[in-house]
């Protein structure tokens, strides 16, 4: 800034002649933006301390004072904390119920907030799709709020320009008004709004639905299309086929004794997966009483549901329809004849399933996944009706999703191609990337494929933003008001916990702006919607109640009990059959380099597109927690790969990491291959969402984009024309079995995991029948060591003896605990290269073991964190006493004292200790190695090196570890401490008798979010506590305890399997 006294001014430096000229002419730095496209003036971009504080203060005021009303406080009205608002203690956590919508379903969450800064999302026990648990994706979405790569400003890209420039909401509003005026006038004879296309994501939000209706009324010529890459079109169309109207299936797995899934990943991929998992686990819980549900899975990929199945039949995608048809035949439901003859044992398998289903009428249910064609869904409805499942395990409600995601997008594309689109508005999402939407911006909008202007609202600048004229920063779900419906229709309100960090707006605010409303207050919009829906007389009271509970009680859709009215059209099945029989192919060269897929032989290859477990449809590509979250089955991180069966890869001579070229319908794709046991022979499974081209620093260029291979007409299942090995290699990084394991290791691993249905050294596992016959089945001990030699057996129990139980029988390997732990404990991410070097930092990992057949293995998921051994081997080897036991049995880690000899890790038999080889938090996960920018004492530098925005997600109750120290699971000691303090305060206030903590008052992050409640924590001193009862269970065992006498405080409960009594051999084609 120039000094007032020109004589006092020092030397002036300039960067370019243009700048100097500007400075001399008095324009200062105004032209910097001209020169540097990415330049953000301080007002829009970075934060000064002053700005940060005012933002925080504003957020605090918002969270504390104005809970029922979120006004955007003008900056000059920020309230100082001179007098503390009632009920708010600085530094103490507050919980707010809100929701996050994904794929048109609202997931209820409780957000934990410190001083106006939300730091963690957990499940809302009152919400039907959460029941207290939140899945990994939902929990990780808080990281997107503080993503340094978030979209920070309104960007305008003029036609013909490559790079956008920073603009403002005011500018946008002016431009929008002009455009809308032009549209309203329109050419003569046209309806108002013709040329305006809105592309929205699939949503069940009542407010968006209301605004859409208003919009369609006021702009009769405009079209509104909805789109989702992971759409449920087939499912909705299937119910239309069966019932004559779109209906949503509400499954209650707790009411089912026999469950059969056909390509349906109910526990891992269903929008209502938390509730379904809870229901399924309820049916496992009774194993100790000798009863358990039985899960049959027919699938092509290896899903989480398949991994916990009691019987699993891998079939290529096109055969699944045949399997359902065959089952229908056995059950006497009219269906086209079908045979699974190419798959030995398949027919018998289905026959067994049919008899089991029939034996459990009223308690049996089948489910079909969204990839299967509508006719299969319709047939499944007929089967469920035959099984008397309606009203018990299956109920129906209305379906807000019109089931037209694919045709809607195709229609939008058609209009663009015809040059009819004047203005295209994309309300969130990324249709350019995940829907293949193509358009070019031109002012005239006349040409085919041209649009006059495209407006994209998004939290991140993505592929669709880059193609658009306007990019508008979207407010994160935690920054704005909104609403949504759970899978069963229950309404939730989305309330902001913090002011938009970068001035983003929500979808409903943009819609209000489009409608020309001057008031675009999200809260008022939501209230307007809900006023007629809830509350009756006392709306304010009902509104407050709903805000507090996170759900509007009793707002679920009423269930209906329709009958299957129509016969299932046979054409669909005929087409499937043809697909298998008619298409001939040419067997290619005998060399392994290339071959053509012959359709009529067992050498058919089909593609199945699935949602990626980490990035979903691509939206989480810039989320480091999720990128580093190993896929629960493949254990792959920071990548996707073409998953193929062992048979196919052996036949084709493909090894892990070989790049292959896939060809279908003239489209090609290059992918690395990963050999995945359990994938059906003849199937290539392609997880979607990777290979983002325009995204932040975390996700850019990670993985391979499979969307180009995916046609809109065949969105999930596709016949492959060719698969060719390119000869290139690609590094795939997994947290387990990074390299193909040698024979030596393979044998040892098999011994430790055990044979199918039998216990191994580490995994205790058996069938329900064996367990019923012998309650001591899982208590076989090794030779054991007399404990008298060491400490008395009941040390470390004053006043509590903390312990944990993990039920392997209920764990589905979903990774929710892993992300919960990461979010709670400020666990850093390290990046692909460092995971390749086995330096991932997860305190809790979910080990996955296979047993038996490589084509169709049994799977065990074993969550493993520090087990808090009473005779902890880590403690006695630490030279500086940095890891010690506390009086309640916690093996504690004193970061301040740790100098990082890493001896504790070497002596830990579970290898659950994690060492900070670098200053992970201050380092980009995409760099290799570390670039040291400083020479001072690192102890004092971390705070300056961590990104200020990224640091906002840190849990203030947990130390952020620096480089050079060891860390590990603490049983969430901060939560224990909080419960202890709470108990003492209550005791002091005379509100409770005892000073100690009661069972259930301490819930570690992992246990709290487990959808199946497989993880239980509590006090072992209390014989009535849940964890004590589980430790006393006949299935409980301490891993390695018999060998090493570690007396771990975490005990595992053996896994039970429940194969059919008559016994059908597991088989594979």
């Amino acid at each position: 800034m120039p000094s007032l006294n020109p004589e006092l001014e020092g030397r002036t430096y300039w960067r370019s002649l243009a700048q100097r000229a500007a400075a001399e002419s008095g324009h200062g730095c105004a032209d910097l933006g001209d020169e540097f496209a990415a330049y953000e003036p301080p007002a829009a971009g970075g934060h000064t301390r002053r700005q940060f504080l005012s933002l925080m203060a504003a957020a605090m005021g918002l969270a504390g004072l104005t809970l029922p009303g979120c006004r955007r406080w003008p900056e000059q009205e920020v309230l100082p904390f001179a007098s503390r608002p009632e009920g708010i203690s600085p530094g103490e956590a507050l919980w707010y119920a809100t929701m996050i919508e994904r794929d048109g379903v609202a997931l209820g969450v409780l957000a934990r907030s410190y001083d106006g800064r939300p730091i963690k999302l957990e499940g809302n026990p009152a919400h039907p799709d959460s029941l207290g648990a939140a899945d990994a994706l939902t929990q990780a979405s808080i990281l997107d709020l503080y993503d340094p790569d978030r979209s920070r400003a309104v960007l305008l890209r003029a036609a013909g320009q490559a790079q956008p420039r920073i603009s403002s909401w005011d500018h946008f509003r002016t431009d929008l008004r002009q455009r809308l005026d032009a549209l309203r006038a329109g050419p003569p004879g046209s309806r108002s709004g013709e040329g305006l296309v809105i592309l929205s994501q699939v949503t069940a939000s009542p407010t968006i639905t209301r605004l859409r209706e208003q919009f369609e009324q006021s702009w009769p010529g405009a079209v509104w299309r909805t789109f989702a890459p992971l759409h449920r079109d087939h499912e909705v169309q299937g119910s239309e086929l069966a019932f004559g109207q779109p209906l949503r299936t509400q499954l209650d797995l707790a009411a089912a004794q026999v469950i059969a899934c056909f390509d349906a990943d109910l526990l891992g991929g269903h929008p209502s997966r938390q509730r379904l998992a809870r229901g399924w686990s309820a049916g496992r819980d009774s194993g100790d009483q000798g009863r358990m549900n039985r899960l049959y899975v027919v699938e092509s990929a290896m899903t989480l549901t398949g991994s916990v199945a009691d019987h699993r039949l891998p079939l290529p995608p096109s055969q699944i329809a045949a399997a359902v048809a065959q089952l229908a035949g056995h059950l006497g439901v009219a269906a086209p004849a079908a045979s699974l003859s190419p798959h030995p044992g398949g027919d018998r398998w289905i026959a067994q399933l049919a008899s089991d289903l029939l034996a459990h009428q009223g308690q049996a249910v089948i489910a079909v996944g969204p990839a299967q064609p509508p006719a299969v869904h319709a047939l499944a409805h007929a089967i469920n009706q035959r099984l008397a499942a309606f009203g018990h395990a299956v109920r129906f409600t209305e379906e807000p999703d019109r089931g037209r995601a694919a045709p809607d997008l195709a229609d939008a594309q058609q209009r663009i191609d015809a040059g009819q689109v004047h203005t295209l508005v994309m309300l969130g999402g990324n249709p350019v990337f995940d829907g293949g939407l193509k358009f070019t911006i031109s002012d005239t909008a006349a040409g085919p494929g041209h649009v006059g202007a495209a407006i994209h609202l998004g939290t991140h600048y993505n592929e669709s933003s880059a193609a658009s004229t306007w990019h508008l920063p979207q407010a994160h779900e935690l920054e704005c008001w909104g609403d949504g419906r759970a899978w069963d229709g229950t309404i939730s309100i989305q309330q902001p916990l913090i002011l938009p960090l970068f001035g983003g707006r929500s979808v409903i605010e943009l819609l209000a702006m489009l409608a020309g409303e001057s008031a675009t207050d999200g809260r008022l919009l939501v209230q307007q919607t809900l006023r007629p829906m809830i509350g009756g007389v006392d709306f304010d009271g009902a509104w407050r109640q709903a805000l507090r509970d996170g759900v509007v009680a009793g707002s679920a859709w009423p269930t209906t009990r329709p009958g299957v009215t129509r016969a299932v059209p046979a054409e669909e099945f005929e087409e499937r059959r043809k697909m298998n029989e008619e298409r001939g192919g040419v067997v290619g060269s005998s060399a392994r380099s290339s071959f053509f897929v012959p359709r009529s032989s067992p050498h058919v290859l089909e593609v199945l597109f699935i949602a990626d477990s980490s990035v979903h449809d691509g939206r989480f590509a810039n989320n480091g927690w999720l990128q580093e979250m190993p896929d629960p089955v493949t254990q792959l991180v920071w990548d996707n790969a073409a998953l193929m069966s062992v048979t196919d890869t052996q036949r084709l001579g493909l090894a892990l990491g070989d790049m292959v070229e896939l060809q279908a319908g003239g489209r090609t794709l290059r992918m690395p291959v990963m050999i995945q046991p359990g994938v059906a022979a003849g199937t290539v499974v392609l997880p979607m969402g990777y290979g983002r081209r325009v995204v932040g620093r975390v996700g850019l260029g990670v993985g391979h984009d499979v969307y180009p291979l995916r046609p809109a007409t065949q969105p999930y299942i596709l016949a492959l024309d060719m698969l060719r090995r390119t000869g290139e290699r690609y590094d795939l990084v997994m947290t387990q079995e990074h390299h193909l394991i040698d024979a030596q290791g393979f044998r040892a691993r098999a011994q430790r995991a055990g044979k199918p249905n039998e216990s191994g050294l580490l995994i205790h596992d058996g069938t329900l029948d064996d367990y019923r016959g012998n309650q001591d089945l899982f208590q076989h001990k090794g030779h054991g060591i007399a404990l008298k030699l060491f400490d008395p057996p009941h040390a470390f129990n004053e006043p509590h003896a903390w312990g944990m139980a993990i039920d392997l029988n209920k764990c589905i390997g979903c990774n929710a605990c892993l992300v919960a732990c990461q979010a709670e404990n400020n666990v850093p991410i390290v990046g692909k290269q460092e995971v390749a070097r086995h330096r991932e930092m997860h305190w809790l990992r979910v080990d996955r073991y296979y047993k038996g057949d490589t084509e169709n293995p049994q799977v065990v998921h074993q969550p493993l964190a520090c087990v808090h051994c009473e005779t902890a081997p880590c403690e006695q080897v630490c030279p500086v006493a940095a890891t010690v036991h506390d009086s309640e049995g916690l093996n504690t880690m004193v970061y301040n004292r740790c100098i990082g000899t890493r001896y504790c890790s070497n002596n830990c038999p579970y290898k659950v200790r994690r060492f900070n080889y670098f200053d992970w938090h201050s380092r980009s996960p995409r760099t290799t190695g570390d670039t040291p920018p400083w020479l001072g004492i690192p102890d004092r530098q971390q705070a300056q090196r961590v990104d200020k925005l990224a640091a906002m997600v840190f849990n203030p109750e947990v130390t952020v570890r620096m480089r050079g120290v060891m860390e590990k699971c603490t049983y969430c000691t901060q939560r224990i401490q909080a419960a202890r303090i709470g108990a003492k305060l209550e005791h002091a206030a005379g509100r409770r008798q005892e000073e100690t903590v009661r069972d259930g008052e301490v819930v570690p992050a992992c246990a709290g979010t487990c959808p199946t409640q497989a993880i239980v924590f509590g006090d072992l001193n209390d014989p009535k506590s849940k964890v004590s009862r589980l430790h006393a269970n006949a299935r409980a065992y301490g891993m390695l305890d018999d060998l090493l006498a570690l007396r771990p405080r975490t005990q595992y409960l053996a896994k039970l399997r429940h194969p059919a009594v008559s016994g059908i051999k597991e088989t594979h084609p």
Partner: protein
Amino acid sequence: MTTLTHPPASGVPTVIGRDNSSDDPRQRAPLVLGDHTFASVTDTVTDLAFGKPSWAWYAGMAVSLSLLVLLGVTVLYLFTAGVGVWGNNNPVAWAFDITNFVFWVGIGHAGTLISAVLFLLRQNWRTSINRFAEAMTIFAVMCAGLFPAIHVGRVWLAYWLFPIPNQMGLWPQARSPLLWDVFAVSTYATVSALFWYVGMIPDLATLRDRARTRMSRILYGIAAMGWTGSNRHWHRFERAYLILAALATPLVFSVHSVVAFDFATSQLPGWHTTILPPYFVAGAVFGGFAMVLTLAIPARHWLGLKDLITIRHLENMCKVLLGTGLIVAFAYGIEFFIGWYSGESFEQFVFLNRAFGPYAWAFWIMVTCNVVAPQLLWFKACRTNVWVIFTVAMFVNVGMWFERFVIIVTSLHRDFVPGSWGDFVPTWVDLGMLAGSFGLFFTLFLLFVRYLPVVAMAEVKTVMPQARAAHGLERFDYQPDPDTPRELRKGHWYT
């Protein structure tokens, strides 16, 4: 020269040419060859300190200093960036760092064994080699001490390993073998340095007396601590030396036993074995003697010390090498036997995995170098051939490094829970630091041969015939080697 009275008993000469490795028990073979008098021994050694070094010294110094710079750079990089610059990871939390540490500590043992144990056992042949073997010990311990200090994650706090009084009343944790290491290695370094220095005082006085420049006179003078060679001084010296030898002797066994405890007290299969302490001591002597040979053979050639470090010295060391090598080989076998005999599958797996798993190559390098190569030394023809000895010694050096690598890495990379298994791959920093530690070692060693008495002159003189001539007890049938050039015998720098 005094006349020698008795004729040879058999008429067989004990020395033929330069070969004094005669095994004839009736005769004591000479330990100093050449036409040496007390004065010529002094000349030979002091000329090394005052003469002009040869090109070989400069070349060696250039290489060593380059490696030392590499060490400095890698250590600085490590300090600024974090220990992640190494390839260590979560299952394999120790790798090159501790491998190098154990390797270098082991190297040191031969020096102490030669200087203390052989002294107490009255093995006179030690006199020619003990000085530089001890020097090797000191330098090896310096290299060894470097690694535990820099391997910790927060290197600026490494001093917390020492029991330093502090306001928090926090002391190191006495149950940890790492703490035992701290005491064992620091005691060892102290005693070794003291022993080395005390033994050097008479020779430093000789250098002081012969120094040509004022500066060297002052420095050697300070180092000689006023040594006059009086009987009282000699008496005190002999007593002190004996006591220090007695003190140093248990350290030979204790230090590497304690280092072995780092592994043996843990409960990791492959580490958790009671055989480790004796096995490590034997291995340390084995590896140390190999390093002494590695240094002695070029040194006696380039420094012209073939008369003082004779083939008999080399042969004796070969015998030690063979003997300890056999102990090591036995230990390898016993580990496998116990693995099998325990009936414990985790134990069995770790040894099978060593021999046939992903690091089988390292294991078989170890076996080839440590078990197979020393078997050559059964043959006298091999024990007296410097090329063979040098080759075997180099094999053992490599093998002993790999032994530690195998013990550490193969045990860690696949332990109990397969879900945590992972491989270790060294980075350039790992390799650079290993090479750099050799730079430090050789730089110090080259400075030593340049400025300090390489051979214990005073001690060597006591084993020369002249020392006992007055008693008339010994005689040598000595035939001067006509091939030996005069300047070599005089101890000029020989290139």
